[in-house]
């Protein structure tokens, strides 16, 4: 018989240990924080070890690390459920207390339930969320195409109006730093589009010169994006990665406990 060590170890570490911890935690409150820290430690350790230990039980296609990835996908699904519960709680509270803007919460819940029920109906009935056999859209697709997609596009497109207004008010050369920002932003905005060709449209004689100048502006823009921007972005990304790594180490070692949601005494 082929003994699957990886699977057994995962079940042991992430199912039996936490369940045992919950049972023991009822009787011994001190264990309530230690068991989740232990689970966090193991969950953090497995992917790291799998990078350095080329053994089937941990890094092979059916080893502990790839299986843990699959468990993560399932857990992510539960996170969605958690989000729905949160939306329900806050919206219902808003409606019952008649807080400011409560009718919007009613619309939100109506949208959540109608879209969700159409989707669940599509999954259970087998008709899916695309088209019906006669070519007409399913209720879910109808809701998505004619309500959700245009609404989300509309909300985002409002940004163009506010960004233009904010740029007009905030982009002032008040000091050296603001001037550098203003000049760089102006060059990028002009260099990313055929602005000079637009100005030369009524004057055919000027168009070749406008095209040449536009290409120079485009190259200047690319240099700004590639060199100063690229260097700054590299620094930011490396800094953020080091910060994330140190935070991960703090979580794995149980120094960072905020995610446990326990009281200070625990």
């Amino acid at each position, binding site marked *: 018989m082929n003994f699957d060590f990886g699977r057994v170890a995962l079940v042991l570490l992430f199912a039996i240990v936490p369940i045992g911890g919950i049972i023991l935690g009822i009787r011994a409150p001190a264990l309530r924080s230690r068991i989740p820290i232990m689970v966090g430690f193991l969950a953090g350790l497995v992917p790291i070890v799998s990078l350095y230990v080329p053994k089937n039980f941990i890094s092979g*296609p059916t080893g502990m690390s*790839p299986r843990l*990835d*699959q468990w*993560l*996908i399932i*857990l*992510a*699904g539960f*996170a*969605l459920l958690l989000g729905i519960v949160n939306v329900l709680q806050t919206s219902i509270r808003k409606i019952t207390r008649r807080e400011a803007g409560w009718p919007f919460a009613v619309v939100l819940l109506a949208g959540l339930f109608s879209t969700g029920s159409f989707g669940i109906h599509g999954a259970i009935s*087998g008709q*899916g*969320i*695309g088209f019906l056999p006669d070519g007409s859209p399913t209720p879910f*697709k109808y809701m*998505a*195409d004619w309500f*959700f*997609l*245009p609404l*989300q*596009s509309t*909300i*985002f497109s409002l940004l*163009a*109006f506010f*960004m*233009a*207004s904010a*740029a*007009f*008010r905030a*982009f*002032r*050369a008040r000091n050296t730093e603001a001037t550098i920002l*203003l000049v760089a932003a*102006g060059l990028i*905005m*002009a260099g*990313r*589009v*055929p*602005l000079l*060709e*637009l100005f030369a*449209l009524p004057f055919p004689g000027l168009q070749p010169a406008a*095209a040449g100048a*536009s*290409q120079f502006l*485009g190259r200047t823009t*690319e240099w700004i*994006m*590639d060199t100063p*921007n*690229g260097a700054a*972005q*590299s620094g*930011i*990304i490396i800094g953020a990665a080091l910060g994330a790594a140190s935070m991960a180490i703090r979580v794995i070692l149980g120094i960072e406990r905020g995610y446990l949601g326990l009281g200070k005494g625990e």
Partner: protein
Amino acid sequence: MAGFFDRMLTLDRRWIFLFVFLSVAIPIIIPIGLPVTTTGSTRSAFEFIEALQEGDIVWISFDYGPSSAPENDPMAEAIMRQCALKKLRFVVDVLYPLGGLQLANNAIGKIAEEFPKLRYGVDYVNLGYKDGAAAVMRRLGEDIAGAFPTDVNGTPLAQIPMMQGLKSLRQVKLVFTAATGLIGEWWITQVHSQIGIPVIIGPTAVSAPKYYAFLNSGQLVGMLGGMKGAAEYEKLLRGRYPQMAKFYKTTRDFTATKGMDAQTVLHTIILMFILLGNYAYFRQRAKAARA
């Protein structure tokens, strides 16, 4: 004239809104047809796909929602058109939860109509949406069926001819992600860095600056930055494939090339407002200093 500049400092923002609306609406209704110049990052993306062999598999990930569809839709569609023309096979997945699946379905439907010879399950597959983007990517590197047991229609992958020989992401030649937000970056950190698959990204213009760092480090083979990148790609497609030149000239659908007209006029309007605002600001400051 002095009164005009004084008024500029306290300009009602609804005037700006009106100018923004007109500068976007008019060029979309009446296209100008302004030229588009290509950049190195877009050209290297295009040439990389051109160098692939017939039958190679390209992974196309729809990692955006309706909010950035005008930028990302033309990119994803142009890449799929190039795959169809080059006879490359492509697999589509969706990792963005808010409407990404609808956009992918619509784009695939459009491409299937444009290229009636494309056969579902043989030339392309739509795997649908899966939650937990980074975890899904890691799983795809080992076992595609482990992350997507069925396609978008619920058909097990084992029953789809194209997927029978495709077990892991390691077998695809390229990942293209049309992305908004962080998901695009995860394709670099979780897939390229750990499996070594080349990645091309199509981010929104807002997030494009971040990806120059990855381009410089060689972790991306190319980038289609925002609507400009998509318009550049459409230009490259038109230049290489005459049928595409005809298509982009006659299609009534929205294309990035049409969008660039609106973007150019809008940038011009915003720049003019910024210049006028600054001139009025310095005038007022000089007046105050004199007083």
